[in-house]
């Protein structure tokens, strides 16, 4: 692992569904489970709402990682939005690889409304992986290719 630049803190965008993962994250709060503060949450009603372009936009804006989190398969509040989201995330992952970004910068997980502990673990994992990968090349301050964006 290369030394990460001084002063850099991972910028991680979390796109989570209202019914499962957002509720799971609230539960982690209620149970006072501690995890690193590097993630910022944008709530949607369902991960099915996520246009692949949202994620590409986040990376062009310099996000170091994006976490998409929805309901478990079979538990979607809207029946099957999470299946569709998962399919799209495979597409985005291959897009990321094509443009030379490590596809580990995008992660999709399934955290239910009762899995507070899992949410904390997921965020911690994503933060650790992001530290391992270092700043995104498109990071507005620390990225190697910041001039390009």
């Amino acid at each position, binding site marked *: 692992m290369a030394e990460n630049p001084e002063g850099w803190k991972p910028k991680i965008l979390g796109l989570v569904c209202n019914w499962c993962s957002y509720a799971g994250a609230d539960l982690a709060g209620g149970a006072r489970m*501690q995890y690193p503060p590097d993630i910022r949450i944008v709530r949607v009603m369902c991960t099915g709402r996520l246009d692949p372009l949202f994620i590409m936009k986040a990376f062009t*804006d310099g996000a170091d990682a994006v976490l998409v989190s929805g309901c478990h398969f079979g538990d979607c509040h809207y029946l099957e939005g999470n299946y569709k989201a998962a399919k799209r995330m495979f597409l985005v992952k291959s897009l990321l690889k094509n443009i030379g970004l490590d596809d580990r910068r995008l992660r999709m997980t399934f955290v239910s409304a009762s899995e507070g502990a899992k949410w904390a673990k997921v965020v911690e994992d994503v933060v650790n992986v992001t530290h391992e990968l270092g700043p995104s090349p498109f990071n507005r301050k620390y990225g190697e290719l910041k001039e390009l964006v």
Partner: protein
Amino acid sequence: MAEAVSPTTSKKPETPRIGVFICHCGTNIAGSIDIDAVKEYAKTLPNVAYVDDYKYQCSMPGQVNIREQIDANKLTGVVVAACTPRLHEPTFRAASKDGGLNPFRFEMANIREQNSWVHMHDREGATEKAKDAVRIAVAKAALLEDLYPKSVPVERAAMVVGAGVAGMQAALDLANAGIKTYLIEKEPSIGGRMSQLDKTFPTLDCSQCILTPKMVDVGRAENIVLMVNSEVEDVEGYIGNFDVTIRRKATGVLSPEEAEAKGIVGGGCTGCGDCGPVCPVTKPNEFEMNMAPRKAIYIYHPQVVPLLYTIDWDSCVKCGLCVEACGEKKAIDLEMQDELVQVKVGTVILATGYEVFPIENKEEWGYKRYDNVITSLEFERLICASGPTGGHLVRPSDGETPMRIGFVLCAGSRDNTGIGKPYCSRFCCMYSLKHAHQIIEKIPGAVPYIFYMDIRSFGKMYEEFYYRIQDEGAKFIRGRVSNIQEDPVTKNVTVYVEDTLLGRPMEIELDMVVLAAAVQPTELTNKTRKLFGVSCSQDGWLLEAHPKLNPCGTTTAGVFLAGACQGPKDIPDSVAQAEGAASAASIPIHKGEVELEPYYAMCIEEKCAGCGMCVNLCPYQALSLVEKDGRTVMQVTEAKCKGCGTCGGFCPGGAIWMNHFATPQIVAQIDAFLLGGEQ
């Protein structure tokens, strides 16, 4: 992508003026986040016209302040940085509305559940995160639009799934409130687990004596449509308008009403019982925990409601002897088929109960290997006067009366081995105390040995009952039973346990052991909950909307929970929750209409290419293609759309506008996070 314009906004965009209100939540937020720093930062954000903070923003003065500042500062949007929107979004929307703003101009920044509570020891990190959260919320608030919830009429009928004591109580309450109620039960009779019990704790009422009158009431109630042998097959619609398909399984027996409908005058099953004796097939009776026989055409017991025989198709040989015995009543139809029935209801209560954990999985106790190791439910039937032995407790191995009886508590409960259940099954301590009392009372000289971890006697008069059983001479041994061995000759069972109070291992030879097996949600619960879009917790119990403040509700509007399907519950708690759920389920029906959140999709027609990709994606068939001005465009049936946004996430032309979660709004949030702050 970001230039999409809402199809509803025709007037030119106003300049947003956002008010930001930051909550301390006592020290819940202020203890981990530098409120002043967030406040000063918020003032520097674009479009922010007013910033304030308050100790408890949700309190009346906090809400009044929001109301006043909307007017004083001509705010076009409100951001409250406080707890989760799942708790107080309705509160602050109401406050915004009181201030003259459309309630959907409100946006919440969660700086408690997802910030101060999870970064308690990182004040700097938490404060930075709070600043970002406020910035993201302000960016969205600046783009929010007026939305108007749609009122839809509520069908004046309700449904209760599961007719155990909780489901029956809920159905009776709804019916008494004048609401037509469909009561769906998968078994041939209502009554559920409670009807299998002998006595109830701590009052020692006879379970059947208090339950049977209720069963009869349910059978008689004019407003209750009772459907036994039935399961929920499919659910469509939403609060106020659920279209439920029920599978009525073929019972092979016509009720008098059904017979009449078929033109058989004066026919149908009267429960006379002439068919049973002639049936040549004998099967174990599930109601008696397989300890008594029944025929392939059967009722569980004489008090069943409705009093109708049922054919067990798996064992029926279709010999036709029962048809002959039935004679003129012509109640039996061996060619009967399942029937699908459609009903429309406004609200639904799930009361699907529990089943016993397969305790044979805990191999060390030898259930199903040793004759004289039984479960508590089997004990209930053996001690019950109407049970297979007429209430004489006997050992299964030899029919002798047992004198030394062990009760193993937490059998499969509070078990972290991965085989049992990690939770407390909650009523086993109390019914085992009751069992101990029953054998002391019924069998002179019999000694109950209770192997326990903790006695949890939490309810009204429960602790007193515990003392009473101690005084009656039950032996309490605090320790978890590690192993049970059977004597191959006498069939006595030796219990190996560490008495943790004396600090020594013990071996106790007993005549019989009763395992207070853990309980788990029924297998069908999982299927049913998915049909209604209800979540479950990790252990499978159905998830309530809020564990403290909304224990009867679910995250699906119009669907409520009663009884043990939500978690192990004794009878009083089940009944109490049933009454709560019935009350909650009757509110929308009595109001007559409900407001639906206006999060539906809209088509931006000038962008729509009419490709129709979205039409197939929609899980609710809410989208269709129509001809308009010579072009094919998509059209949304708003009442069908539930607002998931799956169509909006896919539309290749960006032609779908998701109310309140529109593409420009989400992109503004992403940009605000990544570009708006300090790099």
